[in-house]
């Protein structure tokens, strides 16, 4: 390869990485099913991505009675959480190791849990909603007054948080 081509390659690799990063979330936004989730929220800042509303979904705490798997197959494992609609919102239906055949489900990482706690904490990577600097105060206030709802697009177990709004 000549000089020009290797230089071009060194420029293209970062561009391809950037493009590749957008494929999964963009596909989900375009083709995923939209669901509403109940949240609690507050307003911190990330050094590189700026202000965000940190959201904690109700479905992130799953009561242990809903999980039939033995504890060593749950802690620190990635599992599928099937959701069902109750009223406007989606709530946890059941938890499984294998991908459900149908319905709405999210893949989430179950954290370590204490024996005396009756819930599992699950990380769906849906805990941040970024917004323009200084504009998070209203949402934070609203969250103190009784919660917000999160709009999430779901495709094949992968979720993208596309909006949060007042209940």
């Amino acid at each position, binding site marked *: 390869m000549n000089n020009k081509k290797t230089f071009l390659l*060194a420029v293209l690799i970062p561009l391809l990485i*950037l493009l590749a990063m957008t494929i999964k979330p963009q596909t989900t936004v375009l083709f995923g099913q939209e669901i509403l989730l109940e949240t609690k929220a507050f307003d911190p800042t990330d050094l*590189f*991505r700026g202000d965000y509303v940190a959201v904690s979904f109700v479905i992130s705490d799953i009561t242990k009675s809903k999980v039939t798997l033995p504890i060593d197959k749950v802690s620190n494992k990635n599992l599928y959480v099937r959701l069902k609609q109750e009223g406007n919102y989606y709530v946890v239906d059941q938890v499984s190791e294998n991908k459900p055949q149908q319905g709405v489900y999210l893949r989430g990482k179950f954290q370590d849990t204490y024996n005396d706690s009756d819930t599992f904490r699950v990380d*769906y990577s849906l805990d*941040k909603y970024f917004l323009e600097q200084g504009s998070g105060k209203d949402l934070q206030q609203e969250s103190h007054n009784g919660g917000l709802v999160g709009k999430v697009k779901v495709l094949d177990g992968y979720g993208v948080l596309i909006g949060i709004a007042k209940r």
Partner: protein
Amino acid sequence: MKRQISNANFSLISTELEYYESNGLITGEQKNGILESYEIKGGLNFIRVVVTIGAILVGLGILSLIASNWDRISHLGKLLIIFGVFGGVNLAGYLLSENNPKTSRSLIYLGTLVYGAGIFLIGQMFNFGGEFPTAFLLWSVGVVPMAFRLKDKYLMLFANILFGVYLNGSFDLGFPYAGWVGVPIVYLAFNYFERSKRLLFFANLTTLSFILQITLRYEVKGLYVTLIFFIIGLLMYGVKHNLGFDIFRVQGNILFGVTGVILTIPELWDVLVSAQSTRLVSILFALAFIVLLFALIRKGSLISLVFVCITIFRYYTDTFAFLPKSLFFIVGGLLLLGFGYYFERMMKAPKGGTLA
């Protein structure tokens, strides 16, 4: 070819040679002959510094613009701007590389920062949750090809540091598997980039971070983690080889010094011995450690001297039982004074010390 040395060393040599000349040890001709065999190494180039800082400022500005999440420009608009600026500065960098190499290089640096801004923009667009250490991995992976293409050790250093941030930030997110590939690459780069000492320094730090992540991942007990790093430190200090041994030696000395001080904490030892004997074991370790440090100080290791002081200070703050402490320190101090006096009488010619 003339031997290249720094400006400071050259002025030291010329002062000393003038002193030899005035003492009649060498003639003026000999002095000039010696001085002519040296050449002052090119230091910082002013233009390069100015354009590089300029590029870094613009890059930080763009990173900050993305973080502000200014909503007058849509996310797609910002992504297109990032792609455009990235392509533009790299193209300009390529075109200028013949005639304005310094400006060209700084534009390439700017490109790597714009690329990083792009990663965070995408994280923001799709509201990626969690701590996002993957961003630093992807940033590093994107910088490496250009670093190798231009054989630019500063870019490689940047990629190495980004990789280190990824390794140390991914504790909550499971094992950083990229370490198995990344660690060999940083040493490959060290070899490829004319064995730059800075690269070796950061390559070693990266490896140590990765080993730490492995031990944390397998939930190795604190005592064993510290012992592992203590031994690694001793090996880095002691095993002789040709791959930048002086860097290994300094890093090894600091590593076993820090872990050695940690190992004097009694509570750490309760996984190995019963709770009653932790104090005894830790004190026996501390004594052996101090003896080792003194042996190394005798060989000229100034860093070991620092760790002797830290260990003493650690015991001074350890307890408020002042009377036993007073006895311990007075007896210890008298012993050292006695040894020193004995050695001074034994040795006729004092030895000079060097760093590490």
